[in-house]
């Protein structure tokens, strides 16, 4: 499983990355996590409100700071 966090570096984006990591730790899932800060790549996903969360190439959330529990639900 590949999880990407799309964000240009705002505070919420950094927090989302942390929450993703703690969600993974909680669920014990094996996942590759990548923080995408390149605006061009973010645009390719068609996302306009950051932070956004992408799981296996699919956009699952935009413009929202998800809690670790919400992320755990999305990845399990």
């Amino acid at each position, binding site marked *: 499983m590949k999880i990407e966090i799309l964000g240009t570096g705002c505070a919420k984006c950094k927090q989302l990355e942390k929450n993703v990591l703690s969600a993974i730790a909680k669920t014990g899932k094996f996942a590759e996590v990548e923080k995408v800060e390149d605006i061009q790549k973010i645009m390719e996903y*068609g996302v306009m409100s950051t932070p956004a969360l992408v799981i296996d190439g699919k956009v699952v959330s*935009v413009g*929202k700071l998800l809690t670790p529990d919400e992320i755990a639900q999305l990845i399990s």
Partner: protein
Amino acid sequence: MFEWWHNIVSHFVFDILKLNPNSALGSALDFFLFDTVKIILLLTVIIFIITFIRSYFPTEKVRDYLEGKHPLVGHIAAAVFGIITPFCSCSAIPLFLGFIQARIPLGVTFSYLISAPMNNEIAIAMLFSLFGWKVTTLYIGFGLLVAIVAGIVIGKLNLEDEILIKPPAVKPAHIDEIKIPVKERLKEAWDYTIDLLKKVGVYVLAGVGVGAFIHGYVPSDLIVKYAGGNAWYAVPLATILGVPMYSNAAGVMPLIEVLTQKGMMLGTALSFMMAITALSLPEAMILKKILSTKLIAIFFGIVAVGIMCIGFIFNWVLG
């Protein structure tokens, strides 16, 4: 709507504390207690409603709608969407590039970019709590007018080359609608409202506090002399003063309320409020990463002129 509360406050201040209604302290305390509770109640309700409605209008949807529309329809729709979509200046870059990527004209993009922060939930909620629906309607209506006209002007200037970073040439990927149950939307809207209140609460209290002080202690003549009246410089001065105040809209609005009660003219007040929300320095700093300084200066210049025109017209018509 809040008479009952005013009666309680007046009873407390004048009958229990035995303060003289004509004294500065009595009048200031009465004003402060009445205003803080009223504003916080109204803020909570209005922000909650706006946030809930907005959860149904993500910007991605707006982009899909605006794609390929006639320019004039585009300008109007973009400005109106600015009211009902969530906007955070931290997303200004992806938003801007996303619009350009979908071949939405630069001018239409600016109509949206002017309207969205101007119609932010705090500004609207504060306006409604302090001034009632008439001034709020005027503010939104003339705000839309500024956004539409400024967008059209920017569109006519052929400034496309002033965008420093080009979005990828590929068509934006279509995002499948993410289904969220109503219950969850309500909960999210509520959490957001509480978060926001925690953030702006201090400014509201400070603003009303200073407002109460002015209300009780500063004579009207003084305010009319400097902020009111027909002095030609009142409107431009208000517009310039509004620029650095974006993050404190919640704290400044109560001051404007008191100033208008004490004789500041409505046009000047409108210009001041619009400058606070529409001319935001943090947003300009963010946009500088993808737009040339020239384009940002033109954008600020045109919006400032629009805002001042509205101030002058109002003062002239009402004055």
